[in-house]
């Protein structure tokens, strides 16, 4: 079975700081998919990014960037110049072969 570990339960930063959310996954499969979702205080879950196991290119979207490293089984998420609106719980997710696993989530608090 797959497993996703988000070792950071809570992170608190001050606005404009950069912050990295760690995600380590375990799978025996060669084909798999990784995702990040955001859950702001309002409660809804919002998709941020998807990566498949054959695409190790890092991605940048505005202040968000993702670092996918198969060698370390990690899919880390960095927010540059954090803002108060980034405060949320962030989930890393893996999927393969009808097996979907969510990490425990990292609660990010960005203080003004």
């Amino acid at each position, binding site marked *: 079975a797959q497993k996703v570990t988000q070792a950071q339960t809570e992170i608190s930063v001050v606005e404009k700081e950069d912050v990295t959310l760690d995600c380590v996954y375990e799978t025996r499969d060669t084909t798999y998919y990784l995702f990040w979702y955001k859950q702001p205080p309002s409660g809804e879950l919002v998709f941020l990014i998807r990566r498949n196991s054959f695409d190790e290119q890092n991605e940048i979207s505005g202040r968000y960037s993702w670092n996918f490293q198969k060698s370390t089984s990690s899919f880390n998420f960095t927010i540059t110049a954090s803002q108060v609106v980034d405060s949320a719980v962030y989930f890393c997710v893996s999927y393969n072969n009808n*097996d979907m696993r969510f990490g425990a989530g990292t609660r990010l608090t960005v203080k003004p």
Partner: protein
Amino acid sequence: DTAVSQTPKYLVTQMGNDKSIKCEQNLGHDTMYWYKQDSKKFLKIMFSYNNKELIINETVPNRFSPKSPDKAHLNLHINSLELGDSAVYFCASSPSHGYNEQFFGPGTRLTVL
């Protein structure tokens, strides 16, 4: 215009009762899911349906029964509610199973007294 809707948004009920939560998506997606989020924010998939066929059926009590009358609907029926069933239940949909991004409903907060 709501893509994935759930009703009700809040549900307060007594132990032992039977209740249902409804979910509808208007995105034309083939796959729908039910998740449970506990008080510690831990999210776990319960069921998934693809074209009305059950795909994922995680280890949940058989008091929980999903029903998919058509591709746009996936309802969750819960029999003999227990205190431990109190949680937020999320419905989601995706174009196909698993490897696409999912669109989540607003959640249903179930409180069992």
